[in-house]
């Protein structure tokens, strides 16, 4: 049900763009206004969200330790999984952000006759997630060529690598295909793994469909429909140079693609996609386990009500004396 609602929402977005451009002729709005608005929402939204997190104090040093602590010099510490230094933390975070290390260690279980619970490693989510994020990044980087004239050499290099298969005309770029496959996998596992289906909200399916439709329209434009790349680049260069004009002859598919991308960007700050910023601020990952070595300060630490030793002794003095326990006041 949640998946259907999300699908309807994305189809609705496609229709809005289609009608807006093809029927209502709102090229200027969909080609220029919408992307600008989306970028503004994206920037302000992301910055304010990250600042809100950043302003919230971290009262305690609570890393989840996933390996041996630093203790006696002859005991080997897990410097990455239980870091006690900043460099260890940086290493842990890099592995987490770039290689999804926690997901790599994912397990599954099975209840067998006996009863016997058997555990095994499972890497599909890790692989799917990694493929999805990395291909998305490459696609994003590749698109930078639309905003620079001449196209910088490193972007040409990225594209050359991406097209290393050297098949088809125009040449097949791996990243777009992988992105579509990975996002489809992430959708299918949500539908077919009962536990994951049970926890999935509209907010989980919607971005998947959105990204899927972005990928599909992108692939359509590259391989199947003729789009006027020269005009598109004139538009995109116009946007980044704040001198935007809408050239004639751009296919409606491009406008749909652009509208979906704009929606995605505007949606990011208010959605779970903010994990891209949150992962850096997670106190269970980005702190060193050194709280016995260096005192961590809680900015809002306040004095609390105590039951003092003197009060305790007042209550038990006689019993303590009888038991031969020394007391402060006779």
């Amino acid at each position, binding site marked *: 049900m949640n998946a259907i609602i999300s699908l309807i929402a994305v189809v609705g977005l496609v229709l809005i763009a289609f009608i807006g451009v093809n029927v209502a002729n709102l090229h200027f709005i969909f080609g220029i206004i919408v992307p600008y608005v989306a970028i503004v929402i994206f920037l302000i939204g992301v910055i304010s969200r990250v600042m*809100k*997190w950043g302003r*919230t*104090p971290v*009262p*305690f*040093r*609570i890393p*989840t330790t*996933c*390996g041996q*602590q*630093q*203790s*006696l010099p002859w*005991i080997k510490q*897990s410097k990455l999984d*239980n870091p006690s230094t900043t460099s260890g933390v940086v290493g842990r975070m890099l592995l987490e952000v770039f290689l999804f290390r*926690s997901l790599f*260690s994912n*397990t599954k*279980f099975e*209840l067998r006759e006996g*009863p*016997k*619970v058997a*555990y095994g490693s499972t890497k599909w989510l890790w692989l799917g997630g990694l493929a999805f994020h990395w291909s998305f990044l490459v696609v994003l980087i590749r698109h930078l060529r639309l905003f620079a004239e001449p196209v910088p050499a490193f972007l040409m290099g990225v594209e050359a690598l991406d097209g290393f298969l050297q098949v088809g005309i125009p040449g097949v770029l791996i990243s777009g295909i992988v992105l579509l496959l990975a996002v489809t996998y992430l959708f299918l596992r949500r539908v077919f793994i009962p*536990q*994951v289906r*049970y*926890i999935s*909200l509209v907010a989980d399916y919607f971005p998947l469909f959105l990204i899927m439709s972005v990928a599909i329209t992108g692939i359509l434009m590259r391989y199947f429909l003729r789009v006027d790349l020269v005009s598109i680049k004139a538009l995109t260069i116009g946007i980044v140079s704040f001198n935007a004009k809408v050239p004639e002859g751009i296919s409606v598919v491009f406008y749909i693609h652009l509208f979906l991308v704009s929606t995605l960007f505007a949606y990011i700050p208010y959605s*779970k996609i903010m994990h891209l910023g*949150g*992962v850096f601020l*997670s*106190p*269970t*990952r980005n702190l060193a*386990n050194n*709280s*016995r*070595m260096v005192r*961590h300060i*809680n900015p809002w*630490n306040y004095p*609390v*009500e*105590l*039951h*003092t*030793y003197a009060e*305790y002794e007042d209550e038990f003095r006689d*019993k*303590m004396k009888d*038991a031969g*326990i*020394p*007391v*402060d006041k006779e």
Partner: protein
Amino acid sequence: MAKTPKPDELSKIDYKQPETSWMDTPAELKEGNWCYGAKPKNLETLHFPNPREWRVQDEDWKLPDNWQEIILQGMKERLDKYRSFKVFMDICVRCGACADKCHFFIGSGDPKNMPVLRAELLRSVYRGNFTAAGKILGKLAGARPLTLAVLKEWWYYFFQCTECRRCSVFCPYGIDTAEITMMARELLNLLGLNIDWIAGPAANCYMKGNHLGLEPHTIVGNLEYMLDDIETVTGIKITPTFNRKGAEILFVTPSGDLFADPGTYTCMGYLMLFHELGLDYTWSTYASEGGNFGFFTSNELAKRLNSKIYNEARRLGVKWILGGECGHMWRVLNQYMDTWNGPADFLEVPKSPITGTVFENTRSTKMVHIAEFTADLIKNKKLKLDPKRNDNLKVTFHDSCNTSRGMGLLEEPRYIINNVCNNFYEMDELTIREKTFCCGSGSGLNAGENMEIRMRGGFPRANAVKDVVEKYGVNMVANVCAIDRAVLTASLDYWVPGTKVTGVHELVANAMIMKGEKERTTNLRGDPLPGMEGQE
């Protein structure tokens, strides 16, 4: 009290999800799965709000009229005080990596025991009240209003989480359900909705210094019983001191070790070790609790209870503090104590008087774990050990949640065990170290009335024990946690009868050859030593 089903019945676990979505499936508060509500006298002792007689089964929980306002206000306050809470409310992508990592989920199949869904119970209310999308789109944005049914659902499921952090290990963002449960319990406590198994020990600890409510003379008395037993086994008379000013070291351990088997054997282990070393140390009857049930209630109460340790160390003028075997005690000491009640600038950086080792890793907190202390002794060959005395045992080691995932004390106890036992076997590697399973009853859930959920939660751990019992004939589960010693005894009795539980220092004491000891014929439990059968 509900009758606990038999193991073969309980292990038929249904992992199928209900037909209705979780928001439309109201929680059914099943007997055997919850603990009795906090008694008014305990809340009064602690000066907590809304002390009153109430029963979980009753429709009316006798809440203040403005309870929703109190909760939402409390939530806002905590969102502004804890980055963890705020970030964890916002960034979950519901990938499901955590879903099958929870011992309660594996043991019960209840989808609301999936960490992600446990957190969503709170997150849905957060979205409905604190996010624009949730306020506008409501259910479409995964939001729901805070109703009495939701509040009861919180109470039921946040007292079905043992704050073990296993889910946090697997989460790609480190989202820690323990953190969310801690917040939820704080909120529930604003309405007087603690469980008595936590509020009672916390009140005891506040007034009497320990969870069990042992008064000073009882502590001395309990230890004297142990000293008699030690004398019977070893022929050595030990005379520890209490509340002694000027001692070099203050020793703090969970009060569970003073009270019941098999924790008392661990305690005898401490006493024998310190005697053998001639350690200049003292017990305290005021700071007679290492554990901290305040930690399962609220940050503030945890700080109040914890403050006794430093205050007592200051009053007695000791140089540093040594801590016994306990799980959550060490999460608190490692990650909270210094922040709450430090700086401990009146203490010195701990230095072993026996080996001269300076415990650099404790230079701010000044509190050393006894496994670190003992591992250092063994490494420096300061103990005479005869591991053959433990040859009747085939030992496995259960990592406690808190010492593994909130500290990283993994190798120290293993090093000790390997030096005092000849037969040591690890459990499945996906169930130990940072991936260890909770005993099933941590975070103050080791009551009697919730035995069904305890046995369910204890199932994954017990099942991994069963595996090494069948493979290697393991008959003893060692651990460094007082709650484990109490709880595993029950859950192994239920799932793997015949398997016993021990603290690491009981094994040490059995293997340790003491100066002037008589020929030992039994171990501390009075069981004959290997080769001594029929001699006792």
